[in-house]
């Protein structure tokens, strides 16, 4: 097989030959030149790919190619190993597709430009393949010259100055590199990289053994690192990114970066572990700072430039951590690198299609769903979301960092990623929500092909990394595939897709329901069956409803996988999937852009905490079964618990992490609100359930963490309820109410006793039913009245009776008044706290309880009761499909109220496995606890009978009552002026605000907005470092060298 392989040197030779050939060609024969260019690049790519295949499948092993027929040090040698093959495939293919994307300028400039492109790609391939230092230098200089040449292809006049700045700093790089090389040569007597390693024969101790050698090595290293655009020596690169032709920027970011990284990697391999710290330090600083500086960017290409710089920094961190990464090194480094390369190339190519340079100009993509998909995929690649390579890579990286106690670095990496996600998804939000430019995107084939190739590559690599990861391959999991199928089916009418979706979810439940334990069965029921019921409401949407089903099904897929997850990896992957899906869903709302972003950021932040928690718990493993969480020992267990709990509670919107929720839930579409409120919030609770069940009580510095959770839950309940009482917007009210309800559930879990958990589960079920129902009714009302402000409504009871009934039943249930199911929750709550020692947080919860009446009454009164407004006199009942699920929910509520045992008994028994004490006794109709008893059926019958008797009596004697209209009220001998002035609704609880308004200062919002403001301001101030002056950039470089020298080597070579 080896003999059949084309020599790697062909990669370089063919490019050189073709470049010469182009030089000989007639100036006018552009087409031929073009064909030659593409063919050459294709050939280079083919050779690289063949090697990659052969090496990856083990059919071939690493080979050294001796150029002059003699081994080093007497001649230059090239090496083709797995990494080289992969990188040269990446570089050459990027070159090929960039060439296609560059068609217009290449044709305009003719064969010379094509030759320059070929030389550039050749030089990059050379950097990757060569094992000779001076050869490396030559290839670098070639790359510099070719890059400077390619920059000239830009339409942007400013590229000229950018190119010149590049040349200035490149001169500095090359001077340092050359001096370093020559001294290294002096020390070791060879230019061959392998010759600089400590000689096995003992001839010399390696290049870094002597002082001169160390400085030489440092000079080489710093010069190569400088090519990676490290902070702060990277102003030149950003200017190029901003002004160069985007198709070239793709090469500059994806290919040049990759090649330079590999050069650093090669160099570090001979320097030994002592030098890795420099790479890590430079990498992490660059990663963090570049991401912060990217925050205030409004120019898409410059933003991508910052992101490129940051990503390269991240890979540099990985290179710097190679000492602990072991076998996973290549998997991780390449996972991040190819994700970055593919995404960045794709994004730059996309940017070539966009006319404007502002971030909001990307709204133009909205007319092209395929390009939008590509955009989303690229962003997901960059952020490291499943199922893309960077996700697997980041998972492994974090686990390895955690197992070697490099926790600060781990924190920085995750924090930087979060910031990056911040600006990337803000950008995505702009693209989805901002006004699209009038002229749609023109998509010539040569622009489209590279993008689509990148898209295919992204998913293909996702599959590949999944297969390589040693974890479950996400792209093989049924729910995810089902969700992705909707991407392909997006052309179908919404109703058909809806039917498919419902059938799929029910089918999947039927397929798997035997696999769950009773607790998970409840959650699976809510996620899948409950989700299907909510989806009934989606039948009301006309047309295609583009993008809705992929997003929704992605969320449900994540939820389905979450319930099934048995190990940390599956759990985390599912968690990320559902986060992404719900983000897309929320983003669909009319004014939801900022809220979706803050949702995404809080969720990702939480997810990263979960990731860190799992990584800490795994202790060197790359995953752990969820049951094994309990095996984590002190003092680590406390931290694991804390990280996981905070992560999960970011999803349940605990106080402090709640500010995303109201906007996200309120601005979402009518049928999306119940999904993200009624269903999605339960994901966090499932996580908490798993956490407390497996880990039990944990302490940190002597503080009982579950006790903290108790306080948090109680305060959340109070804050949620209080804030809900003062909302004018009906959906915001419900959203705040959700915060409060989740507070109860968290409190129940944190009680750490049998009934506490049962109560939490009761809230899970109840909250799903009534919050879904209420969001649907309120959504239906808002749809009909055209407003969500409650004070603008009023008196709708006769016009929308079914919605009214749903809200009525819903608020009785939430308030916990017998006979509906909310009471069961309260009853269990009281019994649970009797069993607990934590009395103070409970008081807060007691206070929170009656406050629920405030917002509930307000909800029903200001919408349905009171005075009907002029413009609503002809309003009709909400659409059938929105009402239907509500009526189902009403039925469910009543059934659950009468026979709560149906759902709870099994879970009760299941919880007994963990906490044997305090189980309920389910005898006959009466439910008995250690302290009290309760008989739902009797309550329902008694209340029903009394109610009907009194009602019947009143009907009997009042049968002749005169029905009057809304202004027939005893209005202090006057008559009402207009309904608006008669409807008491706005600022409904003014006295309450007077008494307790101080509790509602938006401290949390202020905290987070100050934090983001600080970051943004830091970015805005920091980027002023880049003055645009080439000499300043050169000084930056020199300062960078000095700083790294001082910090990295302590001034001591």
């Amino acid at each position, binding site marked *: 097989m080896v003999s059949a392989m084309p020599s790697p040197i062909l990669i370089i030779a063919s490019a050189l030959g073709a470049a010469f050939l182009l030089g000989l060609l007639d100036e006018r024969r552009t087409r031929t030149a073009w064909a030659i260019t593409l063919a050459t690049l294709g050939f280079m790519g083919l050779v690289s790919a063949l090697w990659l295949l052969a090496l990856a499948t083990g059919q071939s092993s690493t080979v050294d190619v001796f150029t002059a027929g003699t081994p080093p040090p007497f001649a230059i040698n090239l090496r083709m190993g797995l990494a080289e093959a992969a990188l040269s495939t990446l570089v050459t293919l990027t070159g090929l597709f960039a060439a296609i994307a560059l068609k217009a300028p290449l044709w305009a400039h003719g064969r010379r430009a094509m030759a320059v492109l070929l030389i550039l790609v050749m030089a990059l391939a050379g950097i990757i393949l060569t094992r000779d230092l001076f050869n490396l230098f030559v290839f670098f200089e070639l790359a510099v010259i070719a890059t400077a040449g390619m920059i000239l292809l830009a339409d942007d006049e400013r590229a000229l100055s950018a190119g010149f700045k590049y040349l200035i700093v490149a001169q500095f790089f090359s001077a340092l590199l050359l001096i370093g090389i020559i001294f290294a040569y002096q020390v070791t007597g060879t230019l061959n990289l392998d010759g600089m390693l400590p000689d096995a024969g003992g001839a010399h101790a390696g290049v870094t053994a002597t002082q001169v050698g160390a400085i030489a090595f440092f000079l080489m290293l710093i010069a190569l690192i400088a090519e990676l655009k490290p902070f702060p020596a990277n102003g030149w690169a950003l200017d190029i990114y901003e002004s160069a032709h985007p198709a070239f920027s793709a090469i500059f970011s994806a290919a040049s970066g990759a090649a330079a990284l590999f050069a650093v990697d090669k160099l570090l391999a001979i320097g030994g572990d002592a030098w890795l710290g420099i790479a890590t330090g430079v990498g992490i600083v660059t990663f963090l700072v570049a991401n912060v500086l990217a925050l205030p960017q409004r120019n898409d290409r410059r933003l991508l430039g910052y992101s490129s710089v940051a990503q390269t920094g991240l890979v540099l961190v990985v290179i710097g951590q190679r000492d602990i990464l072991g076998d996973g090194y290549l998997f991780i480094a390449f996972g991040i690198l190819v994700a970055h390369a593919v995404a960045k190339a794709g994004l730059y190519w996309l940017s070539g299609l966009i006319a404007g340079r502002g971030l909001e100009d990307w709204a133009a993509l909205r007319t092209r769903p395929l390009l939008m998909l590509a955009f989303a995929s690229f962003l997901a690649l960059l952020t490291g979301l499943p199922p893309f390579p960077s996700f697997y890579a980041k998972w492994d990286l974090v686990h390895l960092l955690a197992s070697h106690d490099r926790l600060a670095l781990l924190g920085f990496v995750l924090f930087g990623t979060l910031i990056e996600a911040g600006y990337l998804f803000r950008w995505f939000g702009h693209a989805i929500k901002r006004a699209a430019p009038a002229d749609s995107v023109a998509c010539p084939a040569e622009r489209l092909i590279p993008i689509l190739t990148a898209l295919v590559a992204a998913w293909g690599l996702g599959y590949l990394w999944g297969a390589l990861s040693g974890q479950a391959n996400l792209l093989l999991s049924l729910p995810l595939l089902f969700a992705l199928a909707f991407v392909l089916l997006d052309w179908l009418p919404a109703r058909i897709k809806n039917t498919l979706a419902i059938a799929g979810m029910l089918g999947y439940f039927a397929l798997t329901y035997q696999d769950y334990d009773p607790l998970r069965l409840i959650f699976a029921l809510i996620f899948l069956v409950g989700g299907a019921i909510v989806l009934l409401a989606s039948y009301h949407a006309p047309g295609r409803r583009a993008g809705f089903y992929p997003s929704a099904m992605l969320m449900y897929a994540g939820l389905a996988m979450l319930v099934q997850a048995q190990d940390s990896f599956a759990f985390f992957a599912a968690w990320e999937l559902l986060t992404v899906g719900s983000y897309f869903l929320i983003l669909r709302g009319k004014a939801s852009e900022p809220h979706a972003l803050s949702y995404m950021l809080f969720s990702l932040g939480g997810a990263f905490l979960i990731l860190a928690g799992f990584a800490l718990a795994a202790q060197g493993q790359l995953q752990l079964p969820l049951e094994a969480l309990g095996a984590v020992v002190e003092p680590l267990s406390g931290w694991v618990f804390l990280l996981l709990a905070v992560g999960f509670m970011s999803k349940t919107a605990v106080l402090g992490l709640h500010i995303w929720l109201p906007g996200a839930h309120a601005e979402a579409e009518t049928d999306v609100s119940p999904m993200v409120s009624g269903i999605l919030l339960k994901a966090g609770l499932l996580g908490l359930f798993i956490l407390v069940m497996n880990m039990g009580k944990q302490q940190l510095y002597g503080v009982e963490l579950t006790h903290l959770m108790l306080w948090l839950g109680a305060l959340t309940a109070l804050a949620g309820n209080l804030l809900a009482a003062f909302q004018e917007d009906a959906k915001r009210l419900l959203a705040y109410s959700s915060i409060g309800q989740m507070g109860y559930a968290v409190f129940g879990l944190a009680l750490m006793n049998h009934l506490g958990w049962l109560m939490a589960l009761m809230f899970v079920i109840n909250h799903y039913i009534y919050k879904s129902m209420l969001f649907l009714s309120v959504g239906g009302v808002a749809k009909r009245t055209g407003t969500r402000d409650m004070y603008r409504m009023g008196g709708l*009871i006769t016009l929308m009776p079914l919605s009214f009934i749903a809200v*009525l039943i819903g608020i009785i249930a939430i*308030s*916990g*008044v*017998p006979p509906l199911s909310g*009471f069961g929750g*309260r*009853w269990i709550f*009281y*019994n649970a*706290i*009797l069993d607990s020692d934590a*009395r*103070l947080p*409970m*008081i807060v919860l*007691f*206070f929170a*309880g*009656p406050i629920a*009446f*405030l917002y509930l*009454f307000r909800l*029903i*009164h200001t919408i349905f*009761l*009171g005075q009907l407004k002029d413009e609503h006199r002809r309003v009709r009942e909400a659409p059938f499909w929105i009402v239907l699920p509500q009526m189902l929910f009403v039925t469910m509520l009543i059934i659950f109220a009468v026979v709560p045992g149906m759902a709870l008994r099994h879970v009760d028994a299941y919880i007994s496995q963990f906490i044997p004490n305090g189980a309920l006794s389910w005898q*006959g109709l009466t439910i008995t606890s250690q*302290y*009290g*008893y*309760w*008989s739902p059926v*009797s*309550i329902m019958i*008694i*209340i029903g009978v*009394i*109610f009907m008797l*009194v*009602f019947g009596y*009143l*009907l009997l004697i*009042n049968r002749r*009552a*005169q029905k009057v209209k*809304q202004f*027939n*009220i005893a209005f*202090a001998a006057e008559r009402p002026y207009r309904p608006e002035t*008669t*409807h*008491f609704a706005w600022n*409904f*609880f*003014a*006295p*309450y605000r007077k*008494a307790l308004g101080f509790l509602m200062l938006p401290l949390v919002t202020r905290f987070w907005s100050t934090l983001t403001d600080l970051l943004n301001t830091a970015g805005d101030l920091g980027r002023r470092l880049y003055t645009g002056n080439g000499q300043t950039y050169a000084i930056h470089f020199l300062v960078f060298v000095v700083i790294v020298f001082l910090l990295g080597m302590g001034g001591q070579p």
Partner: protein
Amino acid sequence: MSFDWIKIPQALLTVFVVFNFGLLLNALIAKIAARVGRRQGIPIWQNYVDLIKNIGQRSLITHGVHFYLGPVFRLTGGVGLLLFVPTIYGSEMFSNLSFAGDLILALYFVFFGTLGMALGAAESGHPYSAIGVSRGLSQVTAAELPFALAVFAVALQYQTLSVTDIVAAQQGGILHWTLFTNPLAVAAAMLSFLGSMMRPPFDVVLAPQEIPIGPPTEYHSSYLALLQTNRAIFPIAKIVIYMNLFFGGAASWPVFALKVFLIYMVSVFVGVVFPRFRVEQSIRWFLIWAVPLGVLAILWV
């Protein structure tokens, strides 16, 4: 499923007794309040007369279905509350329908009538109704808190949520009453009691001079009759809970009458000498004076 059908007439008997007792007691209280002002006051049977008159009104109006349901909810709440709690300790006959649930059921059922009434009143579209409800709900959040804390303290103290068991634990002499075994809880509860009896200084809901009687402002004729019936039953039912929890319960009807009267008188004593609070004053008052007592009670148990 076996059900003691005899419980139904027994429960009806309880309702009947309490209804009459309540009507008379209300009149008596009104007379006492009048005597404080050196008036003669209403005749003792006046409430009966008012009730009959209101039933006898020939015309009435309705603002809609829910307007109808308001008083129905209200009365159901009152009667239900009465029946969910055993009235006479040790009497099978007057243990009513307490098999359906324990103390928690009673506590939450208190809100059934309030909420239903609020909804019915709001259906009338009268702003005073809505303002009254707004005031009432605002006050309830603060006023109920000490009571809830006291109840919880008592439940902790006796380690049960069953009203019968709590009463049983207080038998054997006056010093066994919660009043003496857990005075903090009782103090908190009694302060809360002031807030729930719609008497000055906490009558912010009805507030005749500000928002002419608030929620029921549109109710008349037989609607009002139902509300009046409830006015007779509901306070008694509520006091029965207090009596059972804090004052040793009642083993016979005379003791019952005496204790209910005395507990009721607490709110009357306060009511006749104080003018009305503003809403936010009332809220602050409960939070500052009553809640700390409740908190102490819980921590002390």
